């Protein structure tokens, strides 16, 4: 059986310039920092990043923005990273803003084999522009399409060698959803345990969706 454990360098080598990446984390909490640093070190360019937010210029996904490696972000919030706003105004970074709950569902739909989802969020606001609307039982919903990525880069607290995952507190956020939605899913983990070392009841994401495992810097 394939050993999923690889180095950060091997993981980054697989990712071409121009790739569409999903990256876990909420304002940096739960972001695979070693993989992000690896992208910067390798100077990967023209990336599209799907994530909750662009964090801070010196943390998480924000570092990719600060290093000008990203051409487009699909996120719910950019307010904590002045560099994102600056590049957006300069016209060098395309920003698609999505309500956070809608973003979570679009990612989930992508990983769960759905074409999209119906949500009341955004009806009657600028968010509905260009989108199909459907009325069900007299209530209007927006059709929000599913999102997929070439690579999902996620962070977990613990994995076994098969790739069964356990997340930590608020570091979970988008990570379990993105694990399903990446064509290739790479997880950075703080703790690696033998197969059988995780109680099946405690597995948050089953190993079937995890392609590669990278050892993180446990703190």
């Amino acid at each position: 059986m394939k050993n999923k454990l690889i180095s950060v360098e091997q993981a980054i080598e697989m990712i071409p310039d121009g790739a569409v990446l999903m990256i876990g984390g909420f304002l940096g909490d739960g972001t695979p920092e070693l993989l992000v640093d690896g992208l910067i070190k390798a100077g990967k360019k023209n990336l599209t990043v799907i994530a909750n937010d662009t964090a801070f210029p010196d943390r998480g996904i924000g570092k990719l923005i600060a290093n000008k490696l990203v051409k487009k972000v699909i996120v719910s919030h950019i307010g904590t990273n002045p560099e994102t706003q600056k590049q957006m105004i300069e016209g060098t970074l395309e920003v698609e803003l999505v309500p956070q709950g809608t973003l979570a569902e679009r990612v989930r739909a992508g990983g769960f084999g759905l074409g999209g989802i119906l949500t009341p969020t955004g009806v009657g606001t600028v968010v509905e522009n260009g989108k199909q609307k459907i009325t069900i039982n007299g209530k209007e919903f927006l059709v929000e399409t599913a999102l997929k990525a070439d690579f999902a880069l996620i962070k977990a607290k613990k994995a076994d060698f098969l790739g069964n995952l356990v997340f930590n507190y608020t570091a979970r956020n988008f990570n379990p959803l993105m694990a399903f939605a990446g064509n290739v899913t790479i997880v950075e983990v703080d703790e690696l345990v033998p197969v059988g070392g995780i109680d099946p009841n405690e597995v948050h994401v089953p190993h079937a969706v995890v392609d590669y495992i990278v050892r993180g810097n446990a703190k």
Partner: protein
Amino acid sequence: MIQDPKIGRTVIAKRVALELKDGDIVNLGIGIPTLVANYIPKGVTVFFQSENGILGMGPAPEPGYEHPNLTNAGGSPVTFLPGAAAFDSATSFGLIRGGHVDITVLGGLQVDEEGHLANWMIPGKLIPGMGGAMDLVTGAKRVIVAMTHIEKNGASKIVKKCTLPLTSVRRVDLIVTNMAVIEVTEKGLLLKEIAPQTTLDEVLKYTEASLIVPEQVPTMPVSL
């Protein structure tokens, strides 16, 4: 009117806190709404929900006890209270959009006569993104806007029609400011209470929207 902005913010937070009922699931936005947690009435237990995946969030930890993977929706360290749960973003917004959050308290840039809220962007000036605000206003059982009554330049934030992009077309339920408590009703904006040290004339002067004013308008039951 209350001159000190800090006292004004405290009055808003104390008054909003009186809206919380025992057992409520509550989501507090950033800014003035966050202060509400400091004034929960005695005998009332509420459960704070945070968009990034907590139900049962506690206050900030003592210095030195911060955990990097235990933060609130603003990225600051928080704690769990006994009985807390942690979950992913889809579950978090299942709670929010699905109508399982009893009260959300949000800041505002404008609220209009129809009860529509604008609080997520100023075109050309401030574009932070909507984060979870659109889902919260659309899905929470009760929406309370906690904001200052006027802008720094003196312009009213309670307007006839929002000129800023709307957060949702769902009407908010209650507006609590440093000058008044206003309920959004089918007939329009109903003046419920006036802040301490504030006159009805001041409220009317600084409110662009039309207000329904009952004969008697009590003072907010909060101490300064």
